[in-house]
């Protein structure tokens, strides 16, 4: 029973990070109908920013979010403005962002070599005991940050004019234009926010995982699974989908096989596509 609870809780914690990655992807998809194949690379960039902030300036990885998020936001905005916005339709943008993914990953390879880099924080192996269950301290911190960021996004999308404008652009872009919303500018901002979310999750993962230039692909796949689970374009869906994926992986690796951890997500993905193609919380399009 303890083992079950233990893996359940660590699954939920990992799931929180997955949710953050997926939130970025789903936001971009919701507003622009663009499937951003380069999403994982923004995560990779976030990881490297945290890695270098720590090794060069001794900035804690969780604090370096305040550096990685705005930097990747700006990078996202610039890339959208000069590259992604040129694509005219969904198919084009898919190929364009796939190319962008290759360019970013290979630039990282060139700049930082293919070496695996480990960000070793002093409290990296500390655990917090909750009864018989122990939780890794970095995991706990990153989960709490995840919750805070999700709440912040929820508040932003529901209570601020800019957030409402983003949702309006996603739902009826012509009507949004009539309201005085510059939909192109909103798309640019949304792309930046999506990129920032990916990089935040990169920073959160930095103390736990090795950073390397092509790590993005692995997490892009996970983000797809989460987004399909939760339904395209849904914030709540991404959060719950992320946690479901995290728990599935965690329980699967404990009770079935550790080596297959990354496969469980894909199995889940197939099952969802077979039985609930619009996602667990997605509404069927009319």
């Amino acid at each position, binding site marked *: 029973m303890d083992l079950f609870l233990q893996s359940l809780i660590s699954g939920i914690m990992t799931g929180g990070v997955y949710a953050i990655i997926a939130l970025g992807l789903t936001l971009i998809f919701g507003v622009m109908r663009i499937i951003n194949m380069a999403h994982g690379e923004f995560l990779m960039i976030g990881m490297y920013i945290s890695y270098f902030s720590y090794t060069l300036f001794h900035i804690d990885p969780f604090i370096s979010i305040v550096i990685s998020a705005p930097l990747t936001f700006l990078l996202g905005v610039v890339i959208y403005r000069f590259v992604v916005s040129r694509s005219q339709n969904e198919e084009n943008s898919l190929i364009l962002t796939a190319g962008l993914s290759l360019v970013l990953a290979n630039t990282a390879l060139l700049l930082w070599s293919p070496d695996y880099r480990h960000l070793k924080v002093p409290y990296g192996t500390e655990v917090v005991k909750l009864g018989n269950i122990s939780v890794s301290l970095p995991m706990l911190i990153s989960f709490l940050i995840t919750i805070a960021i999700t709440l912040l996004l929820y508040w932003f999308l529901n209570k601020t004019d800019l957030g409402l404008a983003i*949702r309006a652009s996603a*739902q009826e872009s*012509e009507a*949004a*234009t*009539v*309201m*005085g*919303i*510059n939909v192109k500018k909103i798309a640019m901002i949304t792309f930046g926010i999506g990129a920032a979310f990916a990089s935040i999750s990169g920073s959160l993962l930095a103390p736990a995982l090795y950073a390397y230039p092509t790590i993005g692909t692995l997490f892009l796949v996970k983000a797809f699974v989460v987004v399909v689970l939760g339904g395209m374009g849904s914030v709540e869906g991404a959060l719950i989908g992320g946690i479901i994926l995290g728990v599935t992986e965690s329980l699967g690796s404990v009770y079935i096989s550790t080596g297959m951890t990354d496969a469980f997500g894909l199995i889940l993905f197939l099952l969802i596509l077979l039985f609930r193609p619009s996602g667990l919380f997605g509404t069927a399009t009319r």
Partner: protein
Amino acid sequence: MLKVNHLQAFYGDIQALWDISFEVQEGEIVSLIGANGAGKTTTLKSVAGLIQNKKGEITFKGEDITEKNGFEMAGAGISYVPEGRKVFPQMTVYENLVLGSYNPRAKSDRENMLEQVYQMFPRLKDRHKQHAGTLSGGEQQMLAIGRGLMSKPDILLLDEPSLGIAPILVQEIFEKIKEINQEGMTILLVEQHVHHALELSDRAYVIEHGEIAVSGTAEEMLNDERVREAYLGI
């Protein structure tokens, strides 16, 4: 107030408007009538800045707005209420109305405008927490008009406000339009129900194949042989 001179508009290579000229004076209701595909909606969309590819001249309150973008029109005082309502379906009635006052000149007066819109359409107040997508067609139309008013416009462009609405509510919508006009709002109306539209309007223009075919006061139109035959079926 609004002056359109020799307007031509294009969808890609296809020319939809050939020569449209008309004007709307402050305080008037002016109708554009015509068959399906004649260019009524295209005319409204051109004025609303939603069609970029156009020639001719559109001036509003003396200012040339031909080249303005669609998102600049709300700030200029032009509010377009689109055909098919186009409310934001997964947002609440309240959020839809708030978005109506997104432009800076309306934002500061948001609470006040909200009060007025709720007063005009009490049903929207009752349902302010409901998602717009769950409203009936008539309620969505009221919401679309209310949202249009939230931007504090000088002119309201109404595109087929009775389209797809239960007959019982059509009358109510037209009464509201009249009420809005009596409170001083200038209105440019495109409407399939020609008879209703003419009864409501001060003047009207008939558009045929992208050109103005006939124009005059609503009364003249109601008595015009051609209009009666082609659009009123009398």
